[in-house]
């Protein structure tokens, strides 16, 4: 009986494809009230007045809340964000007022009737501009904000709200050794998560003080803790429920609609209030993914050994910080990509702009650093006249090397990058030298390749748990705190349990929702860490169950527990499996023939906390950001029309070191989905702003996502170098398909067009401008 390594169907699959699956906003309750937001049309302005008198008179209106009604400042790292703008708006789309009414239409009508007068302030439209001395300061109060979570280093009086640094080796020596030096500037726009399910929350405050929260979130336990903190409610009184989530991609880690829904419920005597984003609000009011401007200089010896790297990043965090300071540290910690660079100097600045604020986006900064590193590696290969694939293979980090934060690498915590590069090159049909091939009168074909690595960048005290209860029939119920948003985390946990118990996966029943009152905490369903963290907890809970089963069975079978083994729904004698007791006869206690019984319901518990992780030193960056790295490579094949630079992405291949593939079909799907997102970002997606900072493409007819049918042929393969401390050796793979896809695409297009593509998205017009030497 094996479960790990099998393409088990996802537990929720049938309910999803039949339409029976329910998401957060699918639940309505009679008597529920509706809240809606009035948002700013200006990117930077003081609010001369906000007049709610007319709105309050409108039919069905129960309450209208403004900035002054909320005392709290929100932010998981730095408390810099008022739930409703107070005196000043800092991005177009920022919530100004919250209306609660009997119906959604009444709430919307009243929201439109609020009278708002703005006094415009100068708009800061890019992070580099924002970081310049003399730039308009977006948060004059920066010096007085509460630091909620170390580390965070705001520079009062500027727009730089945080910075992270790496100082490794000896830069002077590095540059001395470097015989060839290349430089580049790189720009990535902000990006929308564009999950199918828009964000929503409902809150009810019961007479006994309990706060019931229903939210489409990746972080129900974070919602619980933050609401408890913001509104001084005992943590146990806040109960957060999360059903299936319809895509998240990091965008549902940020806690904000829950805060507003709580305020709305409080304002109407605790009644149940629902607040759900329209698609337009989901794009321009809720947080997006971080943008960046970056500069990198890379030096190597003439034989292509990397000697020194210096880079500076300016992250476009938008109007508020949310989790972007942690993204900055993730970028710093992995700033060299999976390459050996003995001397490293890296500064990552987190900069306020008048753009939509940002939070985690699938990849957590690694798309950014991978783009920078992999574009400059391409420039270096060009300067050295060596095959870009060969240059990469020559410089990959190996066991015994150290990372930029000086973690010593082992085969277990790193995996095999060179093998991934080779297999990727094989899949795409790489020809050494990387030249464009003419395949038609106006068409050239080219390949691009890029390697990636990523670790968790999680808090050192992140926890996860698992609870198992047995049913009378010998099957098991498994509860974990991970949210199911499409990555199959719950099914993976069931496979791990089934494998350990020697049972069929169908005999493991999962709790598909999360409820903070009954489910054990899982830090947040982020960072591709569910298999590792939750899997470790499940294995510990399984041991607990096995111990209990053996204990009862030992009495029944009159032998020491040590002689027993479990499998196939039985506890049996290791030396004579014909002597056994079935799970169903001991799951709820064993009953002797006379009726007297022993045991009781078997219940297992497992608990896991990260080990050996440390915060990064603020000056040097030294520290351990995660338990291990996942490495891999992505390659892309494009056909480019040399007249107007339209192109087709024909094929894309990713090979990553998965340690052990737990569910092959799900794994392939996750990697393909990742590539698709990455290629969407590389080719067409971006938040677009006017000179005045207004979002220009805040609806799906203008914000372009790759449609089904436009995707290339996807090729996926895995290398399996076990991560010894992870369940069955499995490494995280959830985010990684998208990390190098934009870089691989830009590399391919640079070869095809014969000009460097260092800015995304690489639309045909952008390539055309690059060929003319015109910058946007």
């Amino acid at each position: 009986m094996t479960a790990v390594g099998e393409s088990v169907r996802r537990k929720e699959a049938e309910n999803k494809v039949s339409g029976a699956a329910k998401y957060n906003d699918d639940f309505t309750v009679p008597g529920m009230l509706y809240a809606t937001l009035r948002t700013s049309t200006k990117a930077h302005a003081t609010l001369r007045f906000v007049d709610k008198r007319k709105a309050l008179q409108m039919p069905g209106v129960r309450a209208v809340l403004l900035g002054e009604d909320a005392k709290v400042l929100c932010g998981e790292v730095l408390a810099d964000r008022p739930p409703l703008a107070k005196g000043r708006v800092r991005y177009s789309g920022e919530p100004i007022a919250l209306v609660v009414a009997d119906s959604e239409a009444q709430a919307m009508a009243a929201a439109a009737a609020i009278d708002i007068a703005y006094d415009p302030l100068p708009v800061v439209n890019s992070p580099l501009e924002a970081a310049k001395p003399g730039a308009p300061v977006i948060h004059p109060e920066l010096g007085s904000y509460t630091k909620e979570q170390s580390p965070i280093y705001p520079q009062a009086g500027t727009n730089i709200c945080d910075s992270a640094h790496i100082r490794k080796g000896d830069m002077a020596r590095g540059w001395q050794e470097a015989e060839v030096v290349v430089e580049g500037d790189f720009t990535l726009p902000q990006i929308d998560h564009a999950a199918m399910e828009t964000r929503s929350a409902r809150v009810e405050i019961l007479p006994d003080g309990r706060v019931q929260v229903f939210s489409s979130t990746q972080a129900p336990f974070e919602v619980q803790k933050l609401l408890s903190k913001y509104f001084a409610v005992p943590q146990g009184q806040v109960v957060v429920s999360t059903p299936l989530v319809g895509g998240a991609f990091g965008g549902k880690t940020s806690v904000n609609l829950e805060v507003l829904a709580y305020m709305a419920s409080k304002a109407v005597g605790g009644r149940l209030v629902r607040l759900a984003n329209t698609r337009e609000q989901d794009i321009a009011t809720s947080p997006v993914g971080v943008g960046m401007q970056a500069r990198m200089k890379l030096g190597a010896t003439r034989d292509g050994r990397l000697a020194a790297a210096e880079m500076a990043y300016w992250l476009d965090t938008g109007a508020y910080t949310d989790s972007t300071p942690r993204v900055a540290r993730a970028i710093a910690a992995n700033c060299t990509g999976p390459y050996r660079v003995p001397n490293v100097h890296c500064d990552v600045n987190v900069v306020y702009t008048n753009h939509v604020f940002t939070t985690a986006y699938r990849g957590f900064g690694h798309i950014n650093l991978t783009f920078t590193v992999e574009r400059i590696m391409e420039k270096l290969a060009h300067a050295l006249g060596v095959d870009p694939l060969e240059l990469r293979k020559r410089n990959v980090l190996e066991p015994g090397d150290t990372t930029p934060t000086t973690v010593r690498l082992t085969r277990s915590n790193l995996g095999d990058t060179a093998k991934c590069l080779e297999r990727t090159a094989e899949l795409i049909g790489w020809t050494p030298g990387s030249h464009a091939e003419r395949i038609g009168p106006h068409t050239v074909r080219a390949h691009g390749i890029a390697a990636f690595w990523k670790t968790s960048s999680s808090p050192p005290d992140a926890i996860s748990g698992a609870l198992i209860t047995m049913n009378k029939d010998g099957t098991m119920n498994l509860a974990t705190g991970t949210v199911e948003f499409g990555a199959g985390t719950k099914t993976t946990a069931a496979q791990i349990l089934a494998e350990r118990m020697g049972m069929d996966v169908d005999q493991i029943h999962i709790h598909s929702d999360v409820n903070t009152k009954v489910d054990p905490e899982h830090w947040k369903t982020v960072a591709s860490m569910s298999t590792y963290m939750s899997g470790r907890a499940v294995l510990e809970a399984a041991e607990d169950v096995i111990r209990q089963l053996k204990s009862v069975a030992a009495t029944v079978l009159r032998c020491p527990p040590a002689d027993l083994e479990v499998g196939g729904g039985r506890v049996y004698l290791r030396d004579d499996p014909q002597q056994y007791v079935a799970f169903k006869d001991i799951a709820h206690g064993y009953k002797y023939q006379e009726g007297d019984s022993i045991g009781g319901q078997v219940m297992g518990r497992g608990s896991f906390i990260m080990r050996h992780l440390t915060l990064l030193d603020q000056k040097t960056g030294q520290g351990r950001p995660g338990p291990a790295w996942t490495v891999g490579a992505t390659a892309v094949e494009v056909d480019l029309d040399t007249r107007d630079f339209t192109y087709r992405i024909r094929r894309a291949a990713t090979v990553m070191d998965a340690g052990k593939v737990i569910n092959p079909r799900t794994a392939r799907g996750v990697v393909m989905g990742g590539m698709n997102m990455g290629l969407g970002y590389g080719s067409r997606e971006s938040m677009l702003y006017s000179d005045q900072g207004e979002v220009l493409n805040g609806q799906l007819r203008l914000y372009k996502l790759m449609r089904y049918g436009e995707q290339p042929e996807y090729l996926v393969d895995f290398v399996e170098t076990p991560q010894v401390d992870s369940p069955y050796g499995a490494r995280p793979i959830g985010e990684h398909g998208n990390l190098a896809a934009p870089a691989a695409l830009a590399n391919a297009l640079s070869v095809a067009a014969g000009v460097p593509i260092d800015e995304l998205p690489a639309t045909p017009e952008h390539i055309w401008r690059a060929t003319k030497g015109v910058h946007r």
Partner: protein
Amino acid sequence: MIRFDFEYHRPETVRQAADVFRELSAAGKSPLYYGGGTEIVTSARLGQSEPGAVVDLKDIPELGVLEMDDGELTIGAARTLADLSEADPWPFLSAAAGRVADHTARCRITLGGNIAGQIQYREAALPLMLAHAHAVLAGPKGQREVPFQEIFDGTLQIGEDEFIAQLKVPRDELDLPFFSRKRTRLDWVDYPLVTVCAVRGEDGLQVAISGYCNAPFHSRALDRALAEDGPAADRVRRALRHVPSPVVSDVHGSAGYRELVLTTTLVDMLQELGR
């Protein structure tokens, strides 16, 4: 969701439609004729329009016809674009209309609605601009049949209380050699940077273009320049001087890039259709 209430009328005859529209206008309800509703619904949802009433034309039999007789093809204006592509009575129209929006939307968007809409591209009108097509208009004063070119110069020029009931195209124009190509920023489904429709018939080569300016256009001078002697690239360059209004620059593409794309598309067109 649409936050305001509005009246919904679904008349069954042309007469009733015109009558109810007139009554609603008189009552100050700012009514709109309603076909597939894709534009009205989306703009109302975003608060960009607020009609007090809509008059849905889909149940009127004349607007649902699709028939061919000896002389001409008659298309009811309430036929959807998806429907027309599937029935394919006029391949040129199928090609142009088949690239409007996406399939789900084309199952709603009507031919009349696409021509009368506020969204500036109106790509389904391009083949009609180049044919000797007629439109049957209906309104309070009854019905009238007019050459399509007289009522459409990129935008629809009819009375506010009138609507297109039918479009008629001479049968012998249905199988002329044509070219229809939509070019976007990158995606298959998107608004056009340019959509070029061209046909070669008894009037020679004729070209209608959408996306390039703020409304579709057909310029005889541009047609003539394309038909002159000389290398294709030169003819196209000269032809572009006859573009009637400023070139659009927006989030989809700049005027400069649009010019490049139109140039290559016209060169391709000349190669495919000949002069």
